[in-house]
């Protein structure tokens, strides 16, 4: 088929190569984190003889299903460091990748609805500032200045008592992010191999030497698992367990409307987060379904609850029409923080457990994972996030900052 826009659009952004028999490194998972890992393996560490193996199509999992929120206002030093590193990378990436993926720093409000919420929020704002993360605490009136459509009346079940505000936070167009990384990876020689599911691991003693796939055996001494909701499935094939549980997480969009919502509003208390995409859909997410599930769908009552919460905060949405709902599979850690580091198998590394918050961390997760795979040692950013923290007890409890769903 000919190109209907010659000169304007290329025929492809990345090649569709057959897998080679071996690589210097293999990244399992062609989502945002996998692409970012490969990108920084090539760019920061000069490793270009590498492959991304994706069981479906590129960025068809949570990268296609998230609500695109980017922020770094986490409580603990370790989290602030990695999420803020990500935010700084987001600020540079459109130029670096030469791809305008509509990163819009429109700010994120995290609403407080009880006195305890207020105390927690103020504490988090102070912690953020100490870590160089832009943050302020807003009164209800200031909240309304940032987002005029939020209902700040006292006559609601959970009145808005204030909010944390991170002005540098925002949203980005998730699929463009994936394409931008994919194009850059491809240009540096990375093989992006789709429809290639890893079915097992090749090991020499306790050392990984390759993977079995639906497209044959592929050898490599360095393998990274970046499979989000399916991390446990992969780990089981490699012979160990991860402290994560996979849950369905749903999101929805409305039909397209005129721009009414200038920022991002999150509320842990009433269980909803809302932004308006560039095209005009209202984008909303809520909590995970309570049970483990790999079905990429959830229960209707969760959506119902989420809509009720959204309507209380935004009465203006009363006549909005739902367009689509969908589900992804999120891998949730006991402390609502991710795992990046080594595994019980030598040469095999894992990046998992991001729960509902992986998208915002995409570049930093790739950065740290690439360092870990290239050098065999954790980067400063991910040292605190190793699997060993569950044994040492040095958990990084981000249930407050991680958001609605943990």
């Amino acid at each position, binding site marked *: 088929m000919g190109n209907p826009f010659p000169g304007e659009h290329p025929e492809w952004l990345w090649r569709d190569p057959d897998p080679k028999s071996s690589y210097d490194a293999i990244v399992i998972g062609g989502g945002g984190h996998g692409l970012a890992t490969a990108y920084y393996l090539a760019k920061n560490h000069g490793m270009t003889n590498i492959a991304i193996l994706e069981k479906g199509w590129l960025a068809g999992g949570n990268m296609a299903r998230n609500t695109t929120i980017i922020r770094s206002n986490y409580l603990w030093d370790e989290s602030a460091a990695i999420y803020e590193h990500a935010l700084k990378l987001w600020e540079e990436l459109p130029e670096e990748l030469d791809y305008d993926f509509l990163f819009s720093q429109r700010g994120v409000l995290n609403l407080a609805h009880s006195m305890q919420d207020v105390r927690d929020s103020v504490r988090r704002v102070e912690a953020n500032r100490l870590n160089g993360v832009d943050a302020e605490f807003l009164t209800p009136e200031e909240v309304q200045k940032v987002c005029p459509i939020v209902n700040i009346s006292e006559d609601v079940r959970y009145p808005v008592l204030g909010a944390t505000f991170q002005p540098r936070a925002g949203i980005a167009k998730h699929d463009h992010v994936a394409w931008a990384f994919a194009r850059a990876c491809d240009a540096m020689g990375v093989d992006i191999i789709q429809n290639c599911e890893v079915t097992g691991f090749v090991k020499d003693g306790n050392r990984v030497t390759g993977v079995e796939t639906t497209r044959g055996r592929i050898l490599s001494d360095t393998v990274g698992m970046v499979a989000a909701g*399916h991390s*446990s*499935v992969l780990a*089981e094939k490699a012979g160990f*367990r*991860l*402290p*994560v*549980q*996979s849950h369905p997480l749903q999101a929805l969009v409305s039909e397209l409307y005129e721009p009414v919502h200038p920022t991002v509003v999150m509320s842990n208390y009433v269980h909803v987060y809302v932004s308006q995409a560039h095209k005009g859909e209202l984008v909303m997410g809520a909590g995970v379904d*309570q*049970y*483990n*599930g*790999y*079905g990429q769908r959830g*229960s*209707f*009552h969760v959506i119902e609850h989420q809509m009720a919460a959204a309507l209380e905060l935004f009465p203006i949405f009363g006549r909005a029409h739902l367009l689509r709902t969908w589900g992804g599979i999120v891998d949730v850690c*006991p402390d609502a923080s991710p795992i990046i580091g080594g595994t019980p198998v030598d040469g095999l590394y894992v990046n998992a457990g991001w729960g509902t918050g992986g998208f915002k961390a995409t570049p930093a997760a790739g950065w740290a994972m690439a360092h870990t795979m290239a050098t065999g040692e954790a980067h400063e950013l991910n040292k605190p996030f190793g699997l060993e923290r*569950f*044994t*040492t007890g040095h958990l990084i409890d981000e249930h407050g900052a991680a958001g609605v769903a943990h």
Partner: protein
Amino acid sequence: MLQIECPWCGLRDETEYKYGGQAHVAYPEDPSALSDEEWAEYLFFRDNPKGPFAERWVHTGGCRKWFNAVRDTRTYEVLAVYTNSDPRPVISDLVADSAGATA
């Protein structure tokens, strides 16, 4: 929305239940005898299979009793429910039955 058969109350909507995670994880007989690794394993590590999973549910919105279910985490089909005094079902038999029923 799932519908789950409570062993005592019959078929009810998921909203009447709370999830309790993996079933049959026993509290260690002598926690102080465990290594840090073993304690971490007990505290934080649970199975997370893609497929049949023996798990606990509690009928909070009904009889308030805990029970066990085997549910397929791909299809969400509930393959069996059983109380703590019932014999544990053999998961491979359940899967065979389910395949037979839908064949």
